[in-house]
């Protein structure tokens, strides 16, 4: 029985069906879950391809995680260095990911990013300019040339606002503060399930809504909130990863978690908050408590040929990139994060347990305020530190999930018909380590591809898949379960314990025995979570919301620990104390995770990575 409630056209901020127990129902061709850069771009593409589209998001429109991105979007437009082109960008991306990337995704990404960025400009984005009026490009770690299109250090805000304004201009429906808790499948006798829709609750009212749709695009972002020290917001609970697993899809690269080298370490309340890589791109250097520029001691063999050997060469590079090699501060993130970690462990850390990031002694106050306005603001307001006058204290922070839903490179289709995935919740593109700036461009390149594919799949169906009443009833019961228990533990405590365990046992440097303990800990937490209780009612109740998110975090935590334990080598965002260095055998395979038969945990298998064609292999011959 469905009743239609009246809904505010833009915000959805109104109660759903009036009838008791009534569930609001909506029909669309394509439902996009997530309103970050990737979700918005997918929705625009699907709309332009003629589909009837809805965007569903946990927060208000314009607040998704993408808004926090600072440095820029990588695209080989060649505006500053005409030598730059997709081949160079492709090579940088693959090497940054230690060759574990899906080569086809890395290729499409490098080829299509420039046009996708210029499209943002068509839609009103105001990028910083070069002297001749083109989109300016900035240096970032692992990129051969200055390549990041940017707006000061608030590129993500510009991207999300531009796409949001485009979405509004096109009149696409948005369901804000509406959280999807289950995907719904149409089940055939033969067992080949396909997507039929999604089940969600309104935060405002706690009431339920069912979306009937043959195509669902997951664009839910990452899962960093499962760690204690993180740059990620409360939304990053791995919902899309868990929704996909429960619908039968597979995850890859889950062992690779990016720890950004530079997060704030003080005051405690902002520990983990990101300090953009642009600080280093614009001249900032790392020093230990002895005042030593220590990155020169940590240059790995793999990158030695392209890294400066002396301070003099490194400093010349900012102005003359042709004749000098890049400073070691701009090595890929995994390298820099490990080096910082090693300095702190060796007792050469700063007073609050980090190291120093110094731009004050290297650039003028005017330059710093102009190029890094929000960093200036952030340190001034939150830490009483003037970054134009003194060094910052920074340390590694959990930042980005390389792992995600396994998809077809051309269409972003998962193994479940009708289920697509884009952005941070998808896997493959970044291999074992993502280069800075490659996420924002990933969002728009694959967002567009997924939107197109989802629309054409929906248009080509002879009949629409059906949602069963039983599945809706089950989704409802599962969402309400935390209210059924009384007097048990609250979800906040369980979340804190999970965050601590992931931080301590599945952190930047890992070890077999600790990973085994992490898996045991996750099992115990799962048992506790099965009995947790929440207070209050269903209306805008954060305790209840967390209880639902927690199940996703636990499932994702298990995936990461399990894959990390299996991969007995060190590569990119996965470092094993007990297995130092990369192992070529592991370099040719992915670990694939899927839900187990009981639905209580995950199973894992090995799978060969797709072979790169010879004409691309030549970029890596030396």
């Amino acid at each position: 029985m469905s009743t239609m409630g009246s809904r505010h056209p833009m915000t959805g901020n109104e109660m759903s069906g009036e009838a008791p127990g009534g569930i609001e129902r909506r029909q669309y061709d394509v439902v996009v879950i997530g309103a970050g850069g990737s979700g918005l771009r997918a929705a625009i593409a699907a709309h332009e391809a003629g589909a009837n589209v809805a965007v569903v998001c946990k927060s208000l429109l314009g607040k998704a995680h993408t808004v926090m991105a600072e440095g820029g979007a990588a695209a080989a437009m060649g505006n500053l260095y005409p030598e730059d082109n997709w081949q160079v960008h492709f090579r940088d991306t693959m090497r940054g990911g230690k060759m574990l990337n899906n080569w086809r995704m890395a290729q499409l990404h490098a080829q299509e990013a420039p046009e996708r960025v210029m499209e943002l400009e068509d839609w009103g984005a105001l990028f910083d300019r070069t002297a001749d009026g083109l989109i300016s490009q900035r240096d970032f770690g692992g990129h051969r040339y200055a390549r990041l299109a940017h707006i000061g250090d608030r590129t993500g805000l510009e991207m999300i606002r531009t796409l949001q304004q485009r979405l509004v201009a096109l009149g696409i429906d948005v369901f804000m503060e509406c959280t999807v808790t289950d995907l719904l499948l149409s089940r055939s006798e033969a067992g080949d399930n396909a997507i039929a829709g999604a089940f969600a609750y309104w935060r405002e009212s706690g009431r339920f809504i069912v979306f009937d749709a043959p195509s669902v695009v997951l664009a839910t972002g990452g899962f960093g909130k499962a760690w204690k020290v993180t740059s990620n917001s409360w939304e990053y609970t791995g919902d899309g990863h868990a929704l996909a697993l429960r619908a039968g899809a597979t995850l890859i690269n889950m062992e690779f978690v990016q720890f950004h080298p530079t997060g704030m370490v003080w005051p405690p309340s902002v520990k983990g908050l990101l300090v953009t890589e642009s600080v280093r791109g614009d001249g900032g250097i790392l020093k230990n408590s002895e005042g030593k520029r220590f990155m020169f001691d940590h240059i790995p063999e793999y990158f030695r040929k392209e890294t400066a050997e002396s301070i003099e060469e490194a400093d010349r590079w900012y102005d003359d990139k042709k004749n000098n090699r890049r400073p070691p501060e701009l090595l890929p993130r995994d390298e820099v994060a490990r080096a910082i970690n090693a300095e702190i462990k060796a007792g050469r850390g700063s007073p609050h347990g980090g190291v120093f990031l110094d731009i004050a002694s290297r650039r003028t106050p005017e330059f710093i305020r102009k190029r890094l306005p929000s960093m200036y603001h952030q340190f001034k307001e939150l830490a009483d530190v003037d970054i134009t006058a003194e060094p910052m204290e920074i340390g590694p922070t959990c930042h980005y999930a390389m792992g995600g839903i396994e998809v077809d490179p051309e269409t972003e289709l998962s193994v479940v018909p009708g289920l697509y995935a884009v952005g941070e919740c998808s896997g493959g593109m970044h291999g074992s380590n993502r280069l800075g700036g490659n996420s924002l461009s990933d969002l728009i390149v694959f967002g567009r591809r997924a939107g197109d594919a989802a629309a054409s799949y929906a248009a080509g169906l002879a009949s629409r898949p059906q949602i069963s009443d039983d599945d809706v009833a089950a989704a409802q019961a599962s969402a309400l379960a935390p209210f059924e228990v009384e007097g048990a533990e609250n979800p906040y405590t369980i979340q804190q314990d999970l965050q601590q365990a992931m931080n301590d046992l599945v952190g930047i440097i890992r070890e077999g025995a600790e990973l085994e303990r992490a898996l045991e800990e996750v099992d115990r937490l799962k048992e506790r979570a099965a009995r947790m209780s929440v207070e209050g009612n269903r209306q805008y109740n954060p305790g209840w919301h967390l209880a639902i998110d927690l199940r996703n975090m636990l499932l994702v935590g298990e995936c990461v620990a399990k894959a990390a334990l299996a991969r007995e080598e060190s590569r990119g965002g996965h470092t094993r104390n007990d297995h130092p260095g990369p192992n070529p055998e592991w370099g040719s395979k992915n670990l694939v995770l899927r839900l187990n038969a009981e639905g209580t945990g995950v199973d894992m298998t090995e799978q060969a990575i797709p072979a790169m064609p010879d004409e691309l292999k030549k970029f890596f011959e030396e």
Partner: protein
Amino acid sequence: MSTGYQLKMRVWRGDADSGALGDYAVEVSEGEVVLDALHRLQATQAGDLAIRWNCKAGKCGSCSAEINGKPRLLCMTRLSDFDPAETITVTPMRAFPVIRDLVTDVSYNYEKARELPGVELGPRDADGKRRMMQVDVERGQEFRKCIECFLCQDTCHVVRDHDDNKPAFAGPRFFLRYAELDMHPLDIRDRRDTARDAAGIGLCNITKCCTEVCPEGIKITDNAIIPMKERVADRKHDPLVWLGNKIGLRNKDNDGRTAT
């Protein structure tokens, strides 16, 4: 600087029908912001306390509320700004209907966003790129720093004290957007009529209260509203513009833009 202490807080609890200030005491420590204190309340004493927040870094504009009556971001208001003995009062934004506790229904702003004619650029240059000079994009860039916290909307007396003005008044956040598009070097649309009629820029009497609360430090009144008002006024009083419109001619005042 002081380390840990018990902070006394009064927090508005309730929904659209009724509500009251609740008294709490919560342990806080050095360097924390108001949002930290509220989160600790949530985790230890009031699991269902409704707060809207995302980034906790002043970047998303979700956590707007009123602290001791002043519109502010919860995540950017440091406890060290207050005397430890002082009681901090936190209430929801006053200009918008309450949903629950500190969360308000800000749909007014999303409605206003929809009424605004979006960007419209001419074709790209022959090589497929666009050229704009840094000095020319900088004005617009200042306005695009807006994080849509809606604190300016909350503070503006035109709607704060007169709810019935809402249909006719888009508010400072959207005057900013009008100005941004108007100053975009390549935009070809003329929004002056819409700014005057649908958005009601004339109702603003330049009190600058909006500028004072903007967490991004955007000079809303001086840099956006006043220039926009001037452009709107020029258009209204210049008979040539009127004639130009009538007979479909472009003129200097139209800057080569098409009217909406």
